[in-house]
C-alpha cells in the first residue's frame, strides 16, 4: 500500500511541471479564447463580459444587409480556402525538396551527416522577420532576381514577384523546410540498410527498393514533417504580411486584424476556433489514411 502511494506521489511530482505548463499556458488561454468568441464585442475593442451571443460564428459565413437580414458572405471562407491551398502547396513543395535532401543526407558517411544537419538548422540562427525581409530584397522589382534576369537579357522589364501568392509560397517553404527535412532524415537514418540489401537480393531494382521498402519505412517521418510544415504555414502571419502585401491575406493576418484594427475580439477568437476545428479535422483524416497506408503496400 505504502509503495503504491509512493509511486503515485512520485508520478504526480514528475508529471506536475508538464501538467502545469499545459494547463496554465495552453488549456486556460484556449478556454478564455473560446469564451471570448461567444461574447458581445466591446465598441473600443475587448468584450462585454456576461453578454453572450453566437454572432461571431454567424459572421464567418453571413453578413447583415441594411434590413438586418442575413446574407451569405463567402469572403472569409475564401481566405480560409486560400490559406489551406497555400499551406498545402507549401507542404507539397517542402516534401518534394525535403525528401531527396534528407535521403541524400542519410546516405552520407557518418562524419558528414552531423555537419549537414547543422547546415540545415543554420537559418534558425536568424530572426524570422529578418529572413523574410531578405526575401523582399530578392523578390522586389529592383531586387536581385529581377536585376539578374535583366542583366542576362532574359527579361526587359521587371517580372512581378513580390506581393504574389508565389512570393508567400516561397517564403513559407523557405521558413519551414527544415521542419520537413529533419524528421524525414531521422526516420531514414533509422532504416536498417540490410533491408535494402535484402530487397535487392530478392530482385528489386533501386527504384523498387526505394518505393517498396524505404518510403514505407520513412512514412512516420514524412507524416511528422508534413504536419510540422502544414500547421504553421496555415497559421502563418509574418510571411504573408511581408511578402503577400494587402491582397494576399491569410488566416493569420485576418485574425490579427480582428484583434487589432477591427477591434472585434469575439470574431477574431471565433476565426481562431474555426481554424482549430478545421486543422483537427484535417489531422484526423490524415491519421486515418496514414494508418491504413502501410498495410496496402
Amino acid at each position, binding site marked *: 500500500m505504502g509503495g503504491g502511494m509512493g509511486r503515485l506521489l512520485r508520478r504526480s511530482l514528475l508529471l506536475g511541471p508538464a501538467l502545469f505548463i499545459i494547463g496554465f499556458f495552453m488549456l486556460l488561454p484556449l478556454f478564455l479564447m473560446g469564451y471570448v468568441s461567444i461574447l458581445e464585442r466591446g465598441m473600443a475593442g475587448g468584450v462585454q463580459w456576461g453578454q453572450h451571443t453566437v454572432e461571431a460564428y454567424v459572421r464567418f459565413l453571413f453578413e447583415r444587409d441594411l434590413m438586418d437580414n442575413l446574407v451569405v458572405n463567402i469572403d472569409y471562407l475564401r481566405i480560409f480556402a486560400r490559406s489551406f491551398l497555400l499551406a498545402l502547396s507549401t507542404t507539397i513543395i517542402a516534401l518534394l525538396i525535403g525528401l531527396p535532401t534528407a535521403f541524400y543526407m542519410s546516405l552520407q558517411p557518418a562524419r558528414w551527416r552531423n555537419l549537414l544537419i547543422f547546415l540545415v538548422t543554420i537559418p534558425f540562427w536568424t530572426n524570422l522577420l529578418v529572413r523574410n525581409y531578405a526575401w523582399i530584397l530578392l523578390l522586389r522589382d529592383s531586387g536581385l532576381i529581377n536585376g539578374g534576369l535583366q542583366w542576362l537579357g532574359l527579361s526587359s522589364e521587371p517580372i512581378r514577384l513580390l506581393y504574389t501568392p508565389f512570393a508567400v509560397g516561397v517564403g513559407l517553404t523557405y521558413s519551414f523546410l527544415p521542419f520537413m527535412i529533419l524528421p524525414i532524415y531521422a526516420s531514414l537514418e533509422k532504416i*536498417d540498410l*540490410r*533491408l535494402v*540489401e*535484402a*530487397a*535487392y*537480393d*530478392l*530482385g*528489386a*531494382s533501386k527504384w*523498387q527498393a526505394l518505393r*517498396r*521498402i524505404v518510403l*514505407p*519505412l520513412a512514412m512516420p517521418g514524412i507524416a511528422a514533417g508534413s504536419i510540422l510544415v502544414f500547421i504553421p504555414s496555415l497559421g502563418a502571419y509574418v510571411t504573408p504580411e511581408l511578402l503577400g502585401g494587402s491582397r494576399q491575406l491569410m488566416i493569420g493576418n485576418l485574425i490579427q486584424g480582428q484583434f487589432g484594427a477591427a477591434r472585434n475580439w469575439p470574431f477574431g477568437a471565433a476565426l481562431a476556433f474555426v481554424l482549430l476545428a478545421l486543422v483537427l479535422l484535417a489531422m484526423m483524416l490524415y491519421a486515418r489514411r496514414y494508418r491504413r497506408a*502501410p498495410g496496402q*503496400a
Partner: protein
Amino acid sequence: MQATSGAAIETQRLTKIFDGPGGEVRALDGVDLIIRENEFFTLLGPSGCGKTTLLRLVAGFEQPTSGELLLEGQPMAHRPPHRRPVNTVFQSYALFPHMSVAENVAFGLEMQRTPRQDIKARVERMLSLVKLSGMGERRPAQLSGGQQQRVALARALANQPKVLLLDEPLSALDLKLRKDMQIELKRLQNETGITFVFVTHDQEEALTMSDRIAVMNEGQVLQVGSPTEIYEHPTSRFVADFIGETNLLSARLSRRDGSRAIFDLDGGGELQGQDDGGHQEGAAVTLAVRPERAELQRDGPGLPARVEQLVYFGTDTHYRLRLGNDPTPFVVRRQNRSGAGGGFAEGEEVRLHIAPDAVRVLQD
C-alpha cells in the same frame, strides 16, 4: 577463363581489398573455389577470415578488387544483386517489418512479375515448406526468433534461386532451436535440390551439416574437403587446431622404415606415423593427434606420461598429460563405458599409446 562444368559457383583468384582507416585490408586473397551443384557447401572460419565477404561478393553486394566470379558458368562482374540467380538468408533475417509474413515471402515473386494467382499459391507452398502455414497474416515482430528464421528461409527460397546463401543464419538462436534448424536446413536442401552455401564460425555446425567444407583464415581458403577429410586429415596447423580439439606436437623426422616414418619429439621420445613422403629426413614437422585417437595404458609400450589433471564430461573424461618436457599438456579423451577398465588418477604415471594411423603430419 574456362568455366568448370557442374559448378554452381566458381571463383578464380578472387580478391577483395577494403580501404580501412588503418590502411588496406585484404579481406579475400586470391581465392580459388569450386562449389558444385546441389551440394551443401560450408565456408568455415573465425570472424574476419573473409567468409562473409566471399558471400557478399557472390550475392553482388560487393565488387571484387580482382579475380573472376562465375555463377553457373556465367561471369558475374558488374551484374547487380537483383540480376543474379542467388538469394540470401541474412544473419539478422532482414525481414521487412512493415509487411506481413506472406507479403515478405511474396516480395521476390512480385519483383519477378509472377502472376498474382501463382504468387498466392507459391507463398502457401513456401510457408508449408518451412512449417508456417496459417501464419501468413502475422507481422515479423509477432514471431519468435526461430519463426522469423523460417520466414527468411521461405522468402529466399520462393524465387527458386540456383544458389541459396546463408550468412550465419543460426547464430541468433538458442542451442535447442539451433539443433532443430540444422536438421531442418538439411531437409530443405534435400527437398529443394538447391545449392546451399552456408557461412559459419561453428565447426560442429559445419561438420554435421555440410557435404563439403572450405576452411578459411585471413582471406585464404586453407583446405576444402568433406567433413571427414577435414577432421581426419587436416593439412595445416590452423585447420587441425580450428576443427575440434587437437594435440599438436613439434618433432623432427628421424628416419623412414618402410611405409612408416619415425619422428623424434622435441619434448623427448619417439613416435611412429605414416610416411607422407613430403619431408626430408631431419626436417622439422608438426604432428597432430586427436584426443580420442590416443590411448592410455598402465604399462607396456608407449610414451611415458604423467596425468596432471582429469576433467569429467559425463560421456567421457579428458586426461591432461605431461609428456616428457613438452610445456603444453597432451589431452586424451576416454569414453566412460562400463567395463572399459578403471580410470586413471591424477598424478599417476601412465603409458601413452598412439597408433601410427592416428598421427597426422601437417604441412606447415
